[in-house]
């Protein structure tokens, strides 16, 4: 996973490069949480451009980060989501709380 932080907008971007399953989420979660606590961002963007696989472990992981970011007063957004991953997001209704943005980071 690559992390980018833009101080001007207090924007934190996570470019996830792993396949998101139960095995990988623990590692991703720990890294994301430490970055979120470090920057206290106004907005967190999850970039799915390089994600080739995700199952429901990803849903749990994103909802967890959404709660943390919201508690710290920030917003969350998804970008570059492919069709098969979007299908999972839609099924779980997660897009109502973490919307997909058309803007590219």
């Amino acid at each position, binding site marked *: 996973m690559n992390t980018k932080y833009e101080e001007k907008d207090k924007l934190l971007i996570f470019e996830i490069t792993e396949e998101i399953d*139960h*095995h990988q989420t623990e590692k991703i979660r720990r890294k994301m949480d430490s970055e979120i606590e470090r920057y206290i961002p106004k907005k967190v963007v999850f970039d799915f451009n390089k994600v080739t*696989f995700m199952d*429901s*472990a990803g849903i749990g992981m994103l*909802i967890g980060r959404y709660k943390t970011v919201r508690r710290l007063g920030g917003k969350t957004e998804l970008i570059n989501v492919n069709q*098969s991953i979007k299908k999972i997001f839609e099924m779980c209704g997660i897009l109502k709380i973490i919307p997909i943005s058309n803007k590219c980071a």
Partner: protein
Amino acid sequence: MKSLYENEMKLEFLSKSNNEAFARISVAAFASQLDPTIEELADIKTAVSEAVTNCIIHAYEDREGLITIICKIFANTIMIEIQDNGKGIDDVNMAKEPLFTSKPDLERSGMGFTIMDSFMDELEVESILGLGTKVSMKKIIKKQENNEEEKEPKIFTTFRM
């Protein structure tokens, strides 16, 4: 021994989380002989990943045990059975409910069975407390029109000769 099925395979591996990717990729590789679309293949991979993760987190609760996957192909259908000898599910119908999870502390979404059910054409769950759980899923791989056009004239020729 002549099998009823056109092709079969069996995988057995330890309930370690780094085998989740191994399991879904192996099943997808086996399924690819049916010439599925990328989307159908993604559905299969996701469903397998959900079932195997359940075995690891719930059935064995992070102790080590064996997970068995049997795949059978018949015509354009792939049947996938994922079995463990873990603790079993107390109430299968409740476990299948969307958003139900017995482990909310692990940030589980409770969507595993719902995803298996909607991504596959059939889902059956058999479980005996203390003995284990078997998840059986079926997916029909739809023939793509281009392929049919290529195949049909060939059969036609054979019949005429």
